[in-house]
C-alpha cells in the first residue's frame, strides 16, 4: 500500500499542492491529468528522483520520503521507456539483479520468467536499436518487474504507441495487474483511465481535484474542469455484440445501441459526447440510427449552452443552445426524443 500525504513541491513556477492519495494493495490506480498538470512530478517524487518540500510518502507502512532511490523498491517505467541502448534486452532485464545476492542461475531464471510473461523471451540477445516501439515498452516494463517492486509506477506508458499496439499493451497491463501487482499509472487519456483503472484521481495544476472509482468520477464529475477534461459524461458499461449482421452495444438493462466498431465481441464501456446527442420535440426520421423517447430530469446552465439530463431508460446528457431550450420548451418534466448516430458512440473495451 502506498500512502502519499500532503506532498508539496515548488518547481520553477509550477507547484504541487498538498497532493494526497492512497494506492491500496492490488489497486490499479490512475492519476489522470493534462500534460503539465504535475503527474510526472508526483511519480518522480514517489520514485525518489526528486525530494518533496513537504509531506510524506509511506510504502507498506514504511516511511520512504527521504529514503534513497535505489533502496525504495519501487519499479518505474518512464514515458519514453529509457531502455539502456548499450545493453542487450537480457542485460536490461537483469540490471536490477546485480544489486542482489542471487547467483547466475537464479538471475537467468528470473529474467526468463518475466520475459516469457511479457512475450519477449525471444529477444533477450537483441540490442534495443533493433526493437519496435511495442517491444521496447515491454522491455522497460520487464526491467521494472524483474526487481519485484512493491509498486509499479507507469509514466504515460502507452502514449508513444500506435492504436493497435496500445490495445495489446493495455491487455498486457491488465494481465500484469491481475497477477496481483499494485500499479500507479499516470496518463492524460481518459479512455486509458476507464479501461484500466480500479481507482482514478484527477490532478489539475498540481492539485488533486477528484478521486474515486471510475464510475463515480466519470458519472459525477465534481467540477467543470473534470467534466470537461474527461469529456465522458454519457458513459455506460456495455457489451459489444458483433454476432449479428449489425454491431450493437447492449447495456446492462438490455437497451441496444447501434454502433460502428471494428472490435470483437466483449465487455467494455460505451461513450457518447453530450454535444452529439440531438434533442427533438417529437419522433422524427433522421439519419441517426439510435432514437429514444425521453423525459427531461434536470437542466443546468453551462458555459455557452444548456445541459439537459434526460431519462431514456438510461441517463443521458445533451447539450443544447439557449435558443433551442427556449423555443422547444425543454423544461424539467417535459417529454422529448433523443437521437444519436451510430458513429457518435465510442466503445472502450475493458
Amino acid at each position, binding site marked *: 500500500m502506498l500512502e502519499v500525504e500532503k506532498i508539496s513541491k515548488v518547481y520553477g513556477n509550477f507547484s504541487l499542492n498538498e497532493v494526497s492519495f492512497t494506492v491500496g494493495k492490488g489497486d490499479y490506480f490512475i492519476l489522470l491529468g493534462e500534460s503539465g498538470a504535475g503527474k510526472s512530478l508526483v511519480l518522480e517524487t514517489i520514485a*525518489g*528522483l526528486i525530494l518533496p518540500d513537504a509531506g510524506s510518502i509511506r510504502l507498506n507502512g514504511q516511511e520512504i520520503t527521504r529514503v534513497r532511490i535505489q533502496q525504495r523498491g519501487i519499479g*518505474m517505467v518512464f514515458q519514453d521507456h*529509457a531502455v539502456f541502448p548499450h545493453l542487450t534486452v537480457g542485460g536490461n532485464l537483469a540490471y536490477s539483479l546485480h544489486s542482489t545476492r542471487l547467483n547466475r542461475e537464479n538471475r537467468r531464471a528470473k529474467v526468463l520468467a518475466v520475459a516469457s510473461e511479457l512475450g519477449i523471451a525471444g529477444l533477450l540477445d537483441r*540490442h534495443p536499436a533493433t526493437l519496435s516501439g511495442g517491444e521496447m515498452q515491454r522491455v522497460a516494463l520487464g526491467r521494472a518487474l524483474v526487481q519485484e517492486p512493491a509498486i509499479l509506477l507507469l509514466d504515460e506508458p502507452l502514449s508513444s504507441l500506435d492504436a493497435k499496439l496500445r490495445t495489446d499493451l493495455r491487455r498486457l497491463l491488465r494481465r500484469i495487474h491481475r497477477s496481483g501487482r499494485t500499479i500507479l499509472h499516470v496518463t492524460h487519456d481518459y479512455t486509458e483511465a476507464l479501461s484500466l483503472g480500479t481507482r482514478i484521481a484527477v490532478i489539475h495544476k498540481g492539485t488533486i481535484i477528484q478521486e474515486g472509482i471510475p464510475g463515480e468520477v466519470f458519472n459525477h464529475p465534481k467540477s467543470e474542469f473534470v467534466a470537461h477534461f474527461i469529456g465522458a459524461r454519457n458513459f455506460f458499461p456495455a457489451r459489444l455484440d458483433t454476432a449479428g449482421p449489425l454491431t450493437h452495444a447492449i447495456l446492462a438493462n438490455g437497451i441496444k445501441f447501434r454502433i460502428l466498431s471494428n472490435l470483437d465481441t466483449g465487455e467494455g464501456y460505451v461513450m457518447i459526447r453530450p454535444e452529439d446527442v440531438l434533442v427533438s420535440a417529437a419522433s422524427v426520421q433522421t439519419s441517426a440510427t439510435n432514437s429514444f423517447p425521453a423525459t427531461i430530469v434536470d437542466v443546468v446552465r453551462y458555459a455557452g449552452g444548456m445541459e439537459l439530463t434526460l431519462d431514456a431508460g438510461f441517463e443521458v446528457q445533451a447539450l443544447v443552445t439557449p435558443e433551442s431550450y427556449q423555443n422547444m420548451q425543454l423544461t424539467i418534466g417535459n417529454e422529448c426524443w433523443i437521437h444519436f448516430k451510430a458513429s457518435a458512440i465510442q466503445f472502450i473495451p475493458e
Partner: protein
Amino acid sequence: MLSSSVSSLRLVFILLGALVLLFIVAPLAGMFLETSPVSIFETAREAEVRNSIWLTICTSLAATAFFSVAAIPLAYLLARRQFRFKKVVTGIIDLPVVIPHSAAGIALLGFVSRNSVVGRLGSSIGLDFVGHPAGIAVAMAFVSLPYLINSARDGFAGVPVRLEKAALSLGASPFRVFRTISLPLAWRNIVSGLILMFARGMSEFGAVIVIAYHPIITPVLIYERFGSFGLKYARPVSVVFILICLALFIALRWLTKEKEEKSDGVTG
C-alpha cells in the same frame, strides 16, 4: 537562377576549402619529398632517435592515463551539476589552450621545482620532476588536459539523464550508474578525448623544454638538431616522428571504431 547561384557558391566554398587543405598538406608533403628514404631509414635506426620517440610516447601515455582518473569525473560534474562559478571553472579548464606554452612551462617549473611544496613532496619519495620523465608528463598533461575534459564533458552531457534515473530506480548505486550507464554511453567522446590528449601531449614542445631538456623527447630532439646541424638534419627525425604518430593514431581510431560498432550492436 537560384540553383545556379547556389552551385556557384558551393564552387567558391570548395575552392576555399581546397586552399586550406593545401596549406596544411603542402609543407608536410614538401618535407617528406625532400627527405630521402635512406636518411629516414638511417635516422630510424639511431638509438637517440628511438629512445626519444619511445620516451615521448610513454610519457604522454602515462600523463593521459594518470590524469584521466581525475579528469573524467570532473568532466562528469561539469556536464551534470549546476554550481556557482561554473563558468569560471570552465574558463580555467580552457586556460592551458590560450596561454603560450613556454609561459605554461615557466609557471609549472616554479610549481614543481625543488624548493616548491610539490617539488619537496616529490623529493621526499625520491621523485624529482625537473629533468625527469615525471616532469615531462606533468608539462604534457598541463597543456593537453582541456582536450580530454571538454570532449568527455560533451559525451556525458549527451547521455540522457533519464537513463541514469532509470538505473537508480533499478537499485543501482550512483557509482554503479556511473560505471555501467554514464561511462559506456559517453565512451565514444571519452576515447576521442583520450586520443586527443595523448596526441597533444606527444606534440608538446614549449612547456616541456622549460621543465626538462633532458631526457630528450622527440619534439625537443628535432629542435636541437635544427639548432645544431640545420634543416637537413632536423627533417628525417621529423618525418620519422610524424610517421609513427600517424600510424599510432590511425591504429587507435581503428581500434576504437571496431569497439563502437560492436557496442552499437547491429547484430540483427
